[in-house]
């Protein structure tokens, strides 16, 4: 009751607030990388999205200066890491004396791969993220040590694998054997964690387009990962970002690579089905 009494007064405040704004919602800019790769940064939401009509890439919420870094590979600071990964791709490691290239030829044989992960692995009977698959190859095929889940080697390799899928729409499967994991991820997405009792949805579904202190909230899409952040000047992986966001709710986070974050990644990736693979993207 007191709620209704105040809404009219509050909306006056909101109008005043809005007019003082520099940004609101996503901007109208278009992303064409190297004058060549047309990115889908806005798309109709897939049917499984219950509360959103339109998807926007995180790129659309960044300032023009930040956006510019991603429009040309010469300006994209993430590209040095892609080059490092190309070297690693061709370097034999481990007891089997093999490199990625021994089995997969050139990196561009990975075209299309980024867009469909996480995905079901029939032999292992599990949902695999791309990180899990890379480590599986290292351990099982190469006899090499697994990389740290959110470490630099892993982030670099994922950036390389992403570049060859850029422009293709994200298209992860959510049914069949992954359905249960997807449901679990969805539940996590809507759970209000920590002392601040905030869910992913609170910030990225209910409040995207708005400022939370100095941050302009996006939809929290992961089509741009790994992401080079100007703030920490390195490549950031999906689970590292999840961890940071959960920590910011004053919660006990899940570990990178945990079943919970794998499920959350599948769910969040599916919320971006239709947006282009953009990784490695640039964010602030």
């Amino acid at each position, binding site marked *: 009751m*007191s709620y209704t009494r105040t809404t009219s007064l*509050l909306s006056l405040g909101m109008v005043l607030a809005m007019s003082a704004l520099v940004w609101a919602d996503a901007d109208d800019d278009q992303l064409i990388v190297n004058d060549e790769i047309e990115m889908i940064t806005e798309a109709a939401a897939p049917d499984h999205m219950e509360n959103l009509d339109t998807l926007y890439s995180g790129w659309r919420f960044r300032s023009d200066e930040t956006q510019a870094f991603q429009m040309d590979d010469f300006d994209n600071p993430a590209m040095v890491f892609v080059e490092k990964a190309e070297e690693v791709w061709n370097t034999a490691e481990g007891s089997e004396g093999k490199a990625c290239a021994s089995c997969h030829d050139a990196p561009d044989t990975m075209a299309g791969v980024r867009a469909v992960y996480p995905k079901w692995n029939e032999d292992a009977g599990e949902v695999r993220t791309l990180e899990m698959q890379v480590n599986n190859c290292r351990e099982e095929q190469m006899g090499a040590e697994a990389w740290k889940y959110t470490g630099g080697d892993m982030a670099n390799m994922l950036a390389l694998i992403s570049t060859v899928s850029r422009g293709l729409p994200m298209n992860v499967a959510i049914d069949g054997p992954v359905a249960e994991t997807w449901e679990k991820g969805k539940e996590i997405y809507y759970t209000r964690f920590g002392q601040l009792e905030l869910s992913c949805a609170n910030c990225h579904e209910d409040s995207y387009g708005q*400022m939370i202190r100095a941050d302009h909230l996006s939809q929290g899409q992961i089509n741009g990962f790994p992401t080079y952040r100007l703030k920490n000047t390195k490549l950031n992986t999906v689970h590292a970002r999840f961890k940071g966001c959960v920590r910011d709710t004053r919660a*006990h986070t899940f570990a990178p690579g945990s079943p919970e974050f794998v499920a959350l990644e599948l769910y969040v990736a599916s919320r971006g089905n239709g947006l282009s693979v953009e990784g490695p993207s640039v964010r602030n």
Partner: protein
Amino acid sequence: MKRALGVAAVLVLGAAQAQASEVKPTDVKFEDGAIAMSLTGVAGDVEAGAKIMNKGAGNCVACHMIEDQSQLAFQGEIGPMLDGAGDRWSEAELRGIVANAKMMFEGTMMPSFYKTEGFIRLGNGYTGKSHEGDVAPLLTAQEIEDVVAYLMTLKYE
């Protein structure tokens, strides 16, 4: 050594006295989302309340604009503007909203600042680690009173 102990004893005693007259987070009585009685019986300090608007435990400007605090950069816009709050709400209502906004606005995104129970995966501050031991509310009882006192000054006339 002896003297230091004496000081500590006085401090402990002081804290115990303050606590005796304080309403604990678990004992707060809400009526239509409002809390009629002061949580401490000590009048709120307007200036101390104003400071809590900024980063720190309160960080109200993360989500609210406050023109009265225009010196604070980057004010958020998740919630309504706070200017005029003292016109729109009674002191009891403001106390309820700051202590646990979910009692006034069902499902609101605003955190509950005077609450110690019912959290999911409560962390140890912003460390990402699990919480151990007693839970302190985001704001103390007196800080709630300070914030309420400050909000009551946000009037348009």
